[in-house]
């Protein structure tokens, strides 16, 4: 299986994703320059965190126009696996691959800390190895992670089981207190209807090794690999 990590100008978690994929799956991974328009040979594309183009405009708004994004959209439409983390999630929203929009955190500050995520859908390729309602400890690091969508969309997301992660406490209880940034319905990550595109604000690549004090994020990369292996077989 081959992973690709997109590098936009201003991406800064590209190397972290690269490293985590290798450490967790031992599968080949390559960087993809934002000017590339060909994704042939890749099985999973990761849009990493960072501040693409400085994010001086609306987050992700410029990266969406990078040549590579047309290719990513086609790749996703063809069923390819796409994982957007943090800024990557924001870019997926701007590109229309996922519904909704991102606002500033409700306390108007950047927030970097561990959060607990309740796995609301373990049927996606990215969460396939998770137990039902499993709780993962995964850090967030963002200034614009306050997910928002209209009522209709929210209903759809809920009905289609597209809400993959919610911010919870360590036991999986979701309350206003466990919501770090004001996201609607405590949403930390969503997928598209087909389930092959996932966007999430927390950073699984930052907690994929015991040395860093937490390896909960590993399961996502292993899930991707397991899904791919099942598909190939």
């Amino acid at each position, binding site marked *: 299986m081959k992973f690709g990590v997109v590098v936009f*100008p*201003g991406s*800064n*978690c590209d*190397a*972290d994703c690269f*490293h*985590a994929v290798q450490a967790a799956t031992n599968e080949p991974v390559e960087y993809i320059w934002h000017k590339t328009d060909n994704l042939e040979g890749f099985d999973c594309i990761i849009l990493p*965190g*960072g*501040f693409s*183009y*400085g*994010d*001086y405009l609306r987050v992700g708004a410029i990266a969406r126009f990078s040549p590579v994004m047309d290719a990513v959209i086609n790749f996703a439409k063809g069923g390819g696996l796409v994982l957007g983390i943090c800024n990557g999630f924001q870019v997926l929203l701007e590109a229309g691959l996922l519904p909704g929009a991102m606002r500033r955190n409700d306390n108007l*500050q*950047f*927030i*970097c*800390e561990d959060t607990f995520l309740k796995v609301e859908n373990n049927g996606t390729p990215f969460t396939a190895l998770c137990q039902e309602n499993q709780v993962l400890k995964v*850090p967030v*690091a963002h*200034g614009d992670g306050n997910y928002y969508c209209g009522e209709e969309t929210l209903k759809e997301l809920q009905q289609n089981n597209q809400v993959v992660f919610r911010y919870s406490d360590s036991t999986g209880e979701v309350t206003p207190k466990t919501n770090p940034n004001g996201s609607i319905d405590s949403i930390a990550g969503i997928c598209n209807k087909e389930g092959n595109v996932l966007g999430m604000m927390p*950073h699984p*690549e*930052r907690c994929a*090794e015991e*040395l*860093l*004090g937490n390896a909960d994020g590993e399961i996502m990369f292993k899930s991707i690999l397991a899904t791919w292996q099942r598909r190939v077989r």
Partner: protein
Amino acid sequence: MAHQNDEKLKPGTWKEMGLTDEEFQKIVDILGREPNFVELGIFSVMWSEHCSYKTSRPVLNLFPTEGEHILQGPGENAGIVDIGDGQAVAFKMESHNHPSAIEPYQGAATGVGGILRDVFTMGARPIAVLNSLRFGSLESARTRYLFGGVVSGISGYGNCIGVPTVGGEVFFAPSYEENPLVNAMCVGLIDHQDIKKGVASGVGNPVMVVGARTGRDGIHGATFASEELSEESADKRPAVQVGDPFMEKLLLEACLEVIKSGCVVGIQDMGAAGLTSSSCEMASRAGTGIEMDLALVPRREKGMTPYELMLSESQERMLVVVKEGTEDTVKEIFTKWDLEAVVVGQVTDDGMLRLTEGEQVVAEMPAQALTDEAPVYQRPYSEPEYLSEARELSLVNVPQPDDNEKVLMDLLAAPNIASKEWVYRQYDHMVGTNTVVRPGSDGSVLRVKGTKKGIALSTDCNARYCYLNPYEGGKIAVAEAARNLVCSGAKPLAITNCLNFGNPEKPGVMWQFRQAVQGMSEACRQLNTPVTGGNVSFYNETRGTAVYPTPTVGMVGLIEDLDKRCTQDFKDAGDIILMVGETKVELGGSEYLSVVHGMEAKGTPPELDLELEQQVQQSVLEAIQKGLVKSAHDCSEGGLAVALAECCISGGIGAEIYSIESIRGDALLFSESQSRIAITTSENNVAELINYLTAAGVPFTRLGTVGGSNLKISLLDAGCATGRPRTVINLPVSEMENRWREAIACLMK
């Protein structure tokens, strides 16, 4: 060639630029003529205190700067220390005090940007940023504005460029009310063979300006940094630069790529005094000259004069000397990162910095005169008058508190001791996935990917001590930084520093400066942590009053095997708590006196016995490496009681402590005696640890046991150790944690 020298200088122009009559005369002597306006501007910034170190240089010579592991000492953009396996760490610390006092967000942000460039210009990839911050009291609205602005400036810049901000310190005292201190430290990782320096060697080699375009911002920033803040300082806001972290991220990646390409001869950041300092310093170091056509420098707006181009401090720019014939390769790399790289001149053999605008020479002066021939001042010094009164303290008049629990809770909620989570939650401290020990511990620890090694980092300075005794205070700053690293299991390697003082033209300030540097030097020698560079920031005064002398130390240590790292949190119930070192009645300058008795910086600060310090550090480090220690925490502000509370809070577990009341109780609990480390060990290892410490000849006491949900401290009467212990503190850890964790957030609401 025609000299553009028709405009005669108005008398006094040099004074407006911060030069004295004598300095002006020296320039005339060097040139053999009067300088023109451009040349005068160039001399004035290069000879400013900020760039020339004209006052500090003779004193800085006291610092030990050599050691077998030092690959690059002072004089370059950053110091470099060997960490084995062909790898090294580049690091440097710098102040951005005055800009931050005027415009906290941009002042702090560009401070981070500047120090990052100092490190990646050496060829190192920045892996961590730390900050040492000083503000007035949080009770004041202005302090809250400055504090909030500085923190978000650091966060805005560091988070965007993607270098984790992993630690540092924040300290509040009324002394900094109008003149906050913002010191930023950057640490980078590099392979020995990739080390690059700021040299313009190779006559005929092209000189390139790369990165951002030059604008009109920050003109005379270095001069502004070399004078006292005043009512009019706010008018100098245009002297504060504006940062663009995205541009810097591109510049970082492009520079590292171009250095790897082998095209680069020398490279230097355009920091203070921009194009001026980078060009003449690079030429001066190589003993060459540089010729530049300013008409070729990419600019943000039309009509910029040579004066403005040379003195602009626009951020995110570098000057690069490349091998002749590689210009196109270099341009290609920068173009890939959407950046400009333009040849503006070449290296010459005549030692002159020659600037033209097209055909016309607009300035011409010996490069070395700008750097090496700057005036040097042996300023007069004498012990300041405030000292005798400030040191006066009779403990007889300091009543012992009835309620030690209240005292401990008040100390835990004091901004200087309380959790700094409100601050570091805004910093991305994990990006890079190397942060093994996060902020909030004694030292931060980063792993070196692909090895078993870890790098431990700390910054330190207790400025109250320095105010009361700059010599002891200087020693303690170094010793405590080292102690912090030892507590994480690291061997201290070297320091950088940022020396923040008042106006050195005042003999009292000069005396503080000399004393502090002497103290630091002595400690650096004893602990074998040479100085690899740093920065001096004078003129930190407001309306004639100097801030506390604040010689901040930034230290780097090495953990050979990360499996043997150590943290401060109490681990398991039943573990035995020992304290290495001795507690004395040393309440002078303590947080306890300030918070509980309203005596801010009074008395004689703790003394530091450097030999004992070294013994304590050595033995604790060895015990950690032997696997005998489960936690280690330095006792500093707030004394033993606060240190134990912090161990409990971070471990989420209580402890039961018994201590003989051999000295007055409040001193036992809150004295800030140096050379003390609280450690724990498992019951199985306690005998071996005690034997080891006894053999090492360091003083230690057995304090108690980890366990329960309360921190319980009981004192035994010294006269009759068999008597009933008197419990003076018995507090639930959760209650302490709430006070400690919420204090700063509450004040900032």
